[in-house]
């Protein structure tokens, strides 16, 4: 790709970007959020057709001009977006061949489709009944279906946008192995990722983007490239530490959940919390480690005003007193806050502006007798915009216009505004770039220093180990370990995260 420039109204997303990918290599693209990685890939894959950008794309020695995604797919370039493009209510086979159905006499030849689907699934290492519906398999397997779909289109250049963002360690590992396998078969891959350890492990070369410009292209095979080196390129400066300095000031236990039982909202047999016990002390940052589907989010949400599943039993104590949290409103009134894992789907109203979002969870604080005082609202929001350094000119800006990191700050502000004693943060740094992560860690630590309890749910073990004072491991709805900071290392955690041993009640 030669000197690609792409402008949106008012924003220059890419300026003069060059990208050289050799055939048969795995090429990683790194950069902070908003650096232009996704835009560049959309240009390459024809999402932004020829003519809407400047510069040229040379593919297999020829200049190409894609008018749409179909044109690029025809040439063997397939992009897999961060948000998977699968139809939940359709089977694996149906999804693999969606828009590309094998036909015989005008009708879909399902026999052939199923046969080919099995073949494609074998190539990506997916062993499922091809008639299984997409909604019944996990995110990791869905990702594999997406890749199988790409193979069905005879892919030569595979573009993956944050393929492992939603995957747990095992699934991620499997995916990376798969990419290596593709390389051996001559398929070129371009991968966008924030997980630098993965990039370091798998990429042959790395192109770093910053502010819509190419910064450098690193050759990993030549050696000398490590995570710090990549980070330096991404942020343009040396990052001394991934975590800000913080001295924990831990007080006494103030929040306790005992013998917590919750079942799945639809299937009556599936227990998502099996007699869980945990506690949080003042000023303590407590981590919840577990594999995808272990039940961490479910546990947190069920505690937060029974907002997930069917409550079967259990007790919550706060400051020694038993409390009942029957609704989200109860939970908020008792000083709980839950920052959801998927901020776009359930954390924010994307139609709102910043100030409306920030006060949404506690309107009573800016209103008298139900009438909102717009001055109070504005001032409260403005205060958070400044103290959390949300990058937006004013609090009247729509939240859709913000980057992931800034949206996450808005969500944090929304819950800080409720004056909580206990904050539950579910994957607080997912899809957020390195610089913003550092800031978010700082905010979490400051909250703890104010004497609040913080629960952090995360799939990134280094993050939990670096941030938390104590880590619970969760496996299949049970809390299997309670590990203090001093004993927390990845091996130890992983062992507990995959063990069925139930932690004895305190």
């Amino acid at each position: 790709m030669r000197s690609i420039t792409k402008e949106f109204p008012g924003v220059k997303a890419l300026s003069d970007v060059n990208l050289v990918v050799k055939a048969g290599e795995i090429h990683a693209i790194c950069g902070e959020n908003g650096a232009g990685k996704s835009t560049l890939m959309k240009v390459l894959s024809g999402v932004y057709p020829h003519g809407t950008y400047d510069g040229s794309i040379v593919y297999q020695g020829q200049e190409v001009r894609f008018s749409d995604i179909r044109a690029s797919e025809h040439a063997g370039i397939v992009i897999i977006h961060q948000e998977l493009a699968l139809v939940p209510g359709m089977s694996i086979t149906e999804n693999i061949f969606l828009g590309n159905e094998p036909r015989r006499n005008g009708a879909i030849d399902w026999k052939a489709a199923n046969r080919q689907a099995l073949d494609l699934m074998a190539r990506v290492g997916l062993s499922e009944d091809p008639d299984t519906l997409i909604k019944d398999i996990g995110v990791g397997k869905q990702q594999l279906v997406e890749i199988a779909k790409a193979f069905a289109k005879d892919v030569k250049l595979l573009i993956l946008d944050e393929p492992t963002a939603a995957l747990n360690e095992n699934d991620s590992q499997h995916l990376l192995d798969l990419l290596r396998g593709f390389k051996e078969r001559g398929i070129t891959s371009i991968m966008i990722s924030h997980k630098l350890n993965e990039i370091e492990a798998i990429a042959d070369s790395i192109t770093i983007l910053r502010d819509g410009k190419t910064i450098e292209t690193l050759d990993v095979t030549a050696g000398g490239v490590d995570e710090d080196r990549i980070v330096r390129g991404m942020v343009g400066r040396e990052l001394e530490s991934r975590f800000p300095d913080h001295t924990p000031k831990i007080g006494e236990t103030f929040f306790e959940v005992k013998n917590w039982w919750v079942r799945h909202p639809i299937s009556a047999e599936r227990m998502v919390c099996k007699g869980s016990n945990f506690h949080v002390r003042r000023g303590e940052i407590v981590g919840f480690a577990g594999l995808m589907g272990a039940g961490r989010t479910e546990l947190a949400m069920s505690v937060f005003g029974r907002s997930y599943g069917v409550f079967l039993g259990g007790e919550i104590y706060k400051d020694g007193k038993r409390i009942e949290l029957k609704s989200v409103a109860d939970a908020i009134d008792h000083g709980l806050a839950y920052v959801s894992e998927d901020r776009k789907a359930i954390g924010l109203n994307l139609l709102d502006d910043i100030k409306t979002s920030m006060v949404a969870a506690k309107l009573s604080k800016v209103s008298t007798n139900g009438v909102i005082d717009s001055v109070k609202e504005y001032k409260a929001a403005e205060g958070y915009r400044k103290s959390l350094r949300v990058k937006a000119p004013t609090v009247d800006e729509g939240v859709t216009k913000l980057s992931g990191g800034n949206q996450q700050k808005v969500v944090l502000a929304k819950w800080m505004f409720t004056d909580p004693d206990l904050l539950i943060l579910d994957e607080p740094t997912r899809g957020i770039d390195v610089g913003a992560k550092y800031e978010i860690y700082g905010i979490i630590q400051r909250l703890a220093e104010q004497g609040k309890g913080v629960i952090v749910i995360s799939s990134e073990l280094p993050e939990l180990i670096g941030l938390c004072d104590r880590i619970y491991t969760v496996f299949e709805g049970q809390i299997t370990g309670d590990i203090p900071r001093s004993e927390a290392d990845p091996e130890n955690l992983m062992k507990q995260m995959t063990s069925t041993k139930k932690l004895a009640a305190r």
Partner: protein
Amino acid sequence: MSRFKDLQKNLFGGTTSNARQFGMIFTLVGIVLLFQIWTNGLTLSSTNLIIMVQQYSYILILAIGMLMVIVAGHIDLSVGSIAAFVGIIVAKVMADYDLPWPLAILVGLAIGVIVGAWQGFWVAYVGVPAFIVTLAGMLLFRGGNQYIGNADTVPVPQGFRQIGAGFLPEVGPATGYNNLTLLLGLAACVAVVLRELKLRKTRTEMDAENAPMWVSAIRVGILVAAIIFVTLRFAGGRIGTSFPISGIILAVLVLAYSFITRNTAGGRHIYAVGGNARAAELSGVKLQRVNFMVMMNMSILAALAGMIFVARSAASGPQDGLSWELDAIAACFIGGAAVSGGLGTISGAIVGGLVMAVLNNGLQLKGVGSDMVQIIKGLVLLLAVALDVYNKAQGRFSIIGTLTRSFRGGGTPASPEPTQQSGREPVKTPVA
């Protein structure tokens, strides 16, 4: 160029994101002027204005409730039938039991509450989509109207007719105008000025930059001029006519509901539920209660609209309220509400309703047949929304908005309400 933009923004309070509503105001003014010229001044004559208010006030009342239903992400197809159902019961209780008309109005509103509770229950607590519940309601209450009224027409007494056909009485010295209407106009002018001052004060308190005083002056000036013009028209009609009672009811409702949707926590919750129901729920919004209240509120307003209509036509009949729901829904969408919920304002819906009303009225004045009127109305609805969809897809804001940039300091709608909207964001621009 940016000065023009600033001026546009300052004058009309909203941001560029209000392009659609902003554009609709100009469209409305344009249509009014077009018909005014085309009908040789008949459109803005006293008699015609009064007729228009009487004829469309109930549709606009429905549009208020419908806007809230649509913002919450639902739809209500039953409003016409509910209006007819309430109308016949009210007419019956007055005819058969000699119930005094003020009590009959209360009975009508009470039936609105009961009907609303019925529909709200299914929508909010059972989770049946509002489309289905109200489709059922449409049949149910239309049948109810015909069952109770025996498909006959039932006349209503004189006192009751006031709410639909009445006017402000003549009081005070003979000025050649209706004095109460003049007072009302004066009050509206004062309100506009006070509102502007309050807005400026609020912005100062927010430490935000205030528009220059002359901008405020122009804005207030335009509004006051429009109000004075309209006031004199209404006050200076045939003796015995003035600003209609139904218009006053409408104005009060518009002001009250604008306030509720914009400035109260309850109103905020409606937008939150429509924008992202799960996020709202996780922020402590009681989803079921909001849905229930919104559906209930719609039915009460439908009951009121039905009674006003019956009062105006002096009798309740089996064909009352036919396809009102469609007019109310169209008004909301023309006025900028989103089909997917979460977006829209009361004032936008009113402007949308007025566009339809003026169009209807003007074409009728020109003697255009109802066949053509329907065709034109259908096209207007389609075009208004298509334009918006197209521009959303293009990631820029509406053509109407762009065109109107050159019309600096145009006009305002012929309604006594200031038409400023809080800055909501109807355009989702793709940002890298």
